[in-house]
């Protein structure tokens, strides 16, 4: 028995003996065995950047060093940690995980370990050892690597090694490099997206019975019969969104190329990311997870609802755009008013009984302003992307963009329920509704001033009484005679309007529209 410790793992060579525990061809006495490691559960790679701290009956030791009967030889920052204690008691391991890595959620610690139970083995081996000095565990499966965070130590307990801490979220450094590409970056509903999956074994290992997994996102559906593996048609096992291809042995430098197609299903929207990776026979990940993203755009025909319509001069106040009966159809190029081929344009024939109103502005709640064309027509392309059960759409005419004296004869704003893929029509009628013409001359006013005469004021009171319920527009005209002062005429007109508004104030039930003008009598 000798106290020489060739590999520096704290276990004398005499105890370790000449055997080769992990089969990597290095004798145990020369094979460094740490107390434990941080390793990636997907790949078995040791992960640097972690830290341990050990808490005993007297206190805590964190970082390399000695205190409270605890000595930390390696603190885990290179992926391996090593510590020993010199006093009996219960010791707890506190872990700081490497940046970017998370504690495993599938491999949980096994609670407290009474080291006495490991006897007679010395050293007590808890998990798998590092294979050679390659920075990777020989066997990184869950079953081979139980781990503990609490240790009950008594005098005479054995050394213990390979208490390996599993990690998730490691960047893959697996031996197989997966890559994936899609033949387009955007797609619409119903379109087929072709994916190409490439796997290359860059390691020196052979992965036995490994199989390719492809995980489609919601909204992409595998097209049956479209998959080929290295050019040979092969149908994967489809389990929901997961496609599993037939297992193959993957020797070093082997390639696998898989082509498959998927269709964009109804309701898909936004970025769809398709993942692929290689699994070995036990279901462990042996490649990186490659992804390809396709952005699904709304499709105008199926997802949108368009709104068309017309703002028309509702001459008969019925709220509908009436056409003149018996007109020839409107497919006549001659009404193009700009002239063609150098010929003057024929005179435009008014086609509509109720013509459209040009330049009327409509607004949506999103601030989209639509201005009608010369014939009062408008359209809102893809006004909404309605949900499955339809969505409401609101449109409002800005009344101030109507000609003076016009009032809407249809509801404003108007709300319609839109269906995806269907066109909706919203017509708005406006008319010079219930116009009362009030004509004034100088005689209606006190001479030389702009005070309305008593007879006019009396007539205004009676008028207001009669129009107080039915919406009416007043057209107030001053017929100006020869030699009359225009400024005085304007002042009188304004005074007349003021008189009407004063009479209206407490009587009327709606906002009274008054248009004023001055006309010259010949």
């Amino acid at each position, binding site marked *: 028995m000798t106290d020489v410790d060739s590999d520096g793992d704290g276990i004398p060579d005499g105890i370790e003996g000449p055997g080769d525990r992990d089969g990597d061809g290095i004798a145990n006495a020369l094979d460094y065995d740490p107390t434990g490691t941080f390793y990636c559960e997907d790949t078995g790679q040791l992960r640097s950047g972690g830290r341990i701290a050990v808490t005993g009956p007297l206190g805590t030791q964190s970082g390399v060093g000695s205190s409270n009967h605890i000595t930390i030889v390696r603190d885990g920052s290179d992926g391996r940690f090593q510590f020993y204690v010199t006093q009996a008691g219960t010791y707890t391991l506190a872990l700081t995980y490497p940046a970017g890595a998370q504690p495993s959620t599938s491999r949980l610690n096994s609670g407290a370990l009474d080291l006495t139970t490991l006897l007679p083995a010395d050293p007590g081996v808890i998990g798998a050892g590092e294979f050679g000095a390659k920075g990777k565990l020989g066997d990184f499966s869950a079953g081979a690597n139980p781990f503990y965070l609490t240790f009950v130590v008594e005098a005479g307990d054995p050394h213990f090694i390979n208490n390996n801490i599993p990690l998730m979220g490691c960047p893959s450094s697996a031996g197989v490099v997966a890559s994936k590409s899609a033949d387009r970056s955007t797609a619409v509903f119903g379109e087929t997206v072709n994916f190409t999956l490439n796997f290359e074994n860059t390691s020196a290992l052979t992965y036995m019975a490994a199989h390719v997994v492809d995980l489609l996102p919601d909204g992409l559906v595998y097209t049956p019969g479209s998959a080929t593996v290295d050019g040979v048609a092969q149908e994967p096992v489809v389990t929901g969104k997961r496609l599993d291809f037939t297992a193959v042995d993957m020797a070093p430098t082997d390639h696998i190329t898989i082509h498959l197609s998927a269709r964009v299903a109804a309701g898909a929207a936004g*970025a769809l990311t398709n993942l692929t990776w290689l699994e070995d026979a036990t279901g462990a990940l042996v490649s990186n997870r490659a992804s390809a993203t396709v952005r699904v755009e709304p499709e105008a025909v199926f997802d949108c609802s368009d709104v068309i319509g017309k703002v028309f001069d509702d001459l008969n106040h019925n709220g509908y755009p009436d056409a003149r009966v018996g007109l020839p159809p409107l497919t006549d190029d001659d009404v193009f008013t700009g002239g063609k081929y150098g010929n003057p344009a024929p005179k435009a024939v008014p086609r509509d009984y109720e013509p459209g109103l040009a330049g009327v502005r409509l607004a949506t709640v999103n601030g989209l302003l639509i201005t009608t*064309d010369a014939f009062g027509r408008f359209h809102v392309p893809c006004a909404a992307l309605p949900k499955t059960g339809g969505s409401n759409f609101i449109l409002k005419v800005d009344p101030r963009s109507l000609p003076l004296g016009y009032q809407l004869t249809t509801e404003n704003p108007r709300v319609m329920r839109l269906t995806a893929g269907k066109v909706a029509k919203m017509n708005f009628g406006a008319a010079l509704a219930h*116009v009362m013409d*009030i*004509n004034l001359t100088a005689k209606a006013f006190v001479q030389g001033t702009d005070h309305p005469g008593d007879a006019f004021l009396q007539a205004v009171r009676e008028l207001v009484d009669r129009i107080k319920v039915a919406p009416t527009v007043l057209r107030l005209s001053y017929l100006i005679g020869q030699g009359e002062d225009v400024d005085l005429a304007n002042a009188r007109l304004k005074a007349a309007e003021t008189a009407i508004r004063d009479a209206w104030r407490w009587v009327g039930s709606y906002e009274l529209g008054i248009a004023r003008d001055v*006309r010259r009598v010949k």
Partner: protein
Amino acid sequence: MSDRRNTTLIGLLTGVSFFTLPSLATAQDTGFSISDGTRLIAGDARLAELAQVQVARTPADLHVTVDGLGVSPRLDLEVVAANDQRVVLQSRINYPAWVVRGEVRLLDQATGRLISTAAIASNASIALDLPAGDLAAVYRVYDSAGRFDETAPIALDRVHAAPEEQGIDAAARRRIPVSGGAVTVSGTGLAPGAVVETLGETLRADSAGAFVLQRILPPGDHAVPVQVAGQGVLTQPIVTIPKAEWFTVGIVDLTFGETLKGFDKGATFTNGRLAYYTKGKTAGGWLITSSADTGETEIRDLLRDFDRKDPQGVLSRLDPDMAYPVYGDDSTLENDAPTNGKFYLRAEQDGSKLVWGNFKGELTGAEYLRNERTLYGLQGVYRSPAQTSGGEARLAATLYAAQPDNLPGREFFLGTGGSVYFLKRQDISIGSETLTIERRDPVTGRVIEQRRLVAGRDYRINYIQGVVTLSAPLSGFGSGGVVQPEAGSTPETRLAAQYEYTPTAGEVDGYAYGGRVETWLTDQLRLGVTGMVDQTDIADQTGMGADLHYDFGKNSFVELEAAKTRGPGFGSSSSDDGGLIVSTDPSVSGTGQGYRFKTSVDLADLGLTAKGSASAYAERRSAGFSTLDYQTTADETLWGLALDAKVSDRVGYKLA
């Protein structure tokens, strides 16, 4: 609803008659009449008849629209006729009420030197004799406070004119606060070519006998007579433009449902949506535009993530031209509240504004540090009411903080002699492009002159295909050939295109901040400070700079600028053949400084009798200096001198 109206109309007609109003019916000579168009209700029957006749005499169908919220100022200068010596220019402006005087400024296209000015009245035309040279014209109008709006430079060698009301807005600089209402007079049914006088203008009806004219008028009452030659005044409505008015549309949309059949029978849902759009102006001169849309979602989520991006983003990316439907009308669409989020607010007053939503960065003024990207976030612009004699705000500040949604693309095209240029990217964000013609020294790469192009007049762009079509061919060299008309090397002309595009996959992270404060200490001296930060995936690109501008005469100035940049730099690409073969210029990373000095002196400003000018520049840029325009890979020092003097009619010196 309309049926109800019809019955009330009939009730009105039957309930009110001549005979039920004896007190008024007897008063024949009252001086007024009230009628409903067909029947006299009160007053003087003869008067009503007279007025009827007046109305009947107007064959035209006239409409007057008063719109206090649809104000869009237009300023343009049209070239009606042109030859080498003489040009006829037409002013087009729809807000003459704010303008006290206007002038056409003739500029030398190569140097930007002001050659002469000529007064032009609003919407009038003038004929100008042109001096020799390659000239451009700028139309500038002043308001009573000395502020001015001006157009981008307009080439004088080709005719471009549009009928009234069909012109475009070519304003490149807008400082006159125009508020009020747009009064539009339109008519149909006139004799073709009839002469119409209205809103202080005379115009002719088109071949179909229709006309339309719009003017922006200040708040208050205005008489709008419409007169047709040979027919007299047809109507003279008095319109009132209110000082304050609002337009609002909103919806509260709640949907409750329960599944009656099938897989998830008995499941209930409660969806809601709150949305509004409002636009208005206050008596204090603020113009407010705002909208919000929670989107249709579960009620408890309605007000969550109110600042989140992109609920309607997919809609805005849809191009109606890409879809199958053809609508067959000429209506126009405009997004008044562009935002990538759920909320939009814009409040403006006299050139100052606050915007939450999508906006175009307005960091201009300095040559090294500029930012004209289209961004989503918060923008504030302040312009002090106090002004210099040149109409500039004494203190101006621009700040923005934004979350870019798109990636910027920047490309340079050497003029090919053609007018079509293919951008490297397709699916350009609509309205995000900034096109500039640059004249560069081909040896040193120094930008000599930049001219911003105006959409519609100078170019057309197809956003989906990424094709720019200029309205005139762009030659790569000032004048081709063996003979060099200028001493030294001839500047090369490039088209610089900056735009935003949506990356097809992945999201853009990071924020962009920036700001500029500039102040005119005197009427001649301007100081400015600019700073900007662009966070990208790799690192922050930061830039800081200060600049000074001093005018000492009409065409004489000194400019100094110092800037420092740090970060991974900006990439750009360039093409010599209009975009068929594109080479990508790698971005320059690191830290670098740039210093710039530039002066131009008009000999006349020095009191010399000789005509001509002298200019000089010096620039030093260290390796790693990276701005949108410059990528410096090695330390550079440039300087140059130019003198162009004409000592007599026959003798001139030119040195460069």
